[in-house]
């Protein structure tokens, strides 16, 4: 794998996910070497913001933004000046990516217009790559996003195909897959990951990593469930920190060349030390600052850690 950059198959991934505790450090070390060999020492830094929060008609059981649960998250839209300001704050951390997210099944005309205006305003004021995550798309919407200059599209498969119906009933894994195919064919970069700790078995975790490897996304954001009050998964336990580290190593070994990003839940699952362990175990990208409805640790803490680990922040020019 180190030599050829070919990832582990599902059986190999499962072996890593089942390693005894005392073999986790060696797996993280190997994952780190694979990352250094195929991706290099740079770390891609990204900020994310919610353009339209809450009131989503879908029922993803982990999500506080579904309008179908008694979550305290209310529906709210971000205005364009605030969106541009958020992009500026993100760029000020040295980040090269800014992802605009909306809690929707898929965009309607109002959201597409807000995107058109918002992306144009950001591009006029801030030097940063703009990514988007707006749910399921039509071919026409894919084309419009390309035209706006959105360079990467996030659409998570969330979990293994075999477990997806336990988590979402209002749309299918296959519907998500077809949006991802359109995005890939459009030339936009594909960002696709998911959430661990939804109740999937360890076999399903391996299945999920193998399914992502088949998709070969440019980026895989790895979230750990942060159980949200009022959601069907609100009382689930958080992922065991050792299982989280096994998963980080396994996903890197399944996807040697992808941008593997620490996304939500790392603070809760792994604490402050976990960020370091992940960055030395296959992770090569972080979301800095706050998430969509919850808060992260301050960007400065992550940036100081990167300095200490001698991992340069990937420059904007390197991504163009």
């Amino acid at each position: 794998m180190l030599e050829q950059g070919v990832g582990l198959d599902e059986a190999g991934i499962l072996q890593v996910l089942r390693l005894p505790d005392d073999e986790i450090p060696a797996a993280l070390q190997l994952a780190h070497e694979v990352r250094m060999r195929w991706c290099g020492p740079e770390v891609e830094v990204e900020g994310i913001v919610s353009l339209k929060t809450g009131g989503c008609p879908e029922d993803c059981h982990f999500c506080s933004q579904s309008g179908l649960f008694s979550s305290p998250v209310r529906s709210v839209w971000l205005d364009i000046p605030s969106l541009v300001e958020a992009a500026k704050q993100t760029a000020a951390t040295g980040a090269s990516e800014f992802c605009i997210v909306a809690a929707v099944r898929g965009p309607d005309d109002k959201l597409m217009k807000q995107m058109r205006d918002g992306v144009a305003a950001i591009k006029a004021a801030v030097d940063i790559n703009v990514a988007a995550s707006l749910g399921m798309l039509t071919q026409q919407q894919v084309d419009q996003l390309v035209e706006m200059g959105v360079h990467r599209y996030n659409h998570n498969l969330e979990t293994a195909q075999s477990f997806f119906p336990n988590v979402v009933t209002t749309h299918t894994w296959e519907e998500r897959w077809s949006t991802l195919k359109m995005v890939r064919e459009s030339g936009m970069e594909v960002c696709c990951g998911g959430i661990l700790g939804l109740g999937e078995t360890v076999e399903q975790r391996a299945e999920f990593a193998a399914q992502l490897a088949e998709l070969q996304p440019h980026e895989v954001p790895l979230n750990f469930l942060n159980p949200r009050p009022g959601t069907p998964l609100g009382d689930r336990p958080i992922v065991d920190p050792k299982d989280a580290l096994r998963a980080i190593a396994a996903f890197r070994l399944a996807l040697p060349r992808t941008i593997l990003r620490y996304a939500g839940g790392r603070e809760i699952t792994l604490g402050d030390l976990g960020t370091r362990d992940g960055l030395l175990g296959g992770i090569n990208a972080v979301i800095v600052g706050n998430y969509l409805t919850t808060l992260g640790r301050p960007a400065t803490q992550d940036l100081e850690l990167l300095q200490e680990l001698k991992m340069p922040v990937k420059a904007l020019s390197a991504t163009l």
Partner: protein
Amino acid sequence: MTVMVYCERCGEPGRHDECERARALEPPRFCAKCRRRMKVQVVPAGWTATCVEHGTMHG
């Protein structure tokens, strides 16, 4: 002095240790004075939470 009547995280009366711990990584969701659900916008470097009656908090 403002007296906190409702928990800003769960909206129930009083203070709750678990909610206070969670608040380190969450913005408030309920107005502590009137228990209304607030309109909360999180951005990368902060958040605002607005109660129609009691105004906007920043963090």
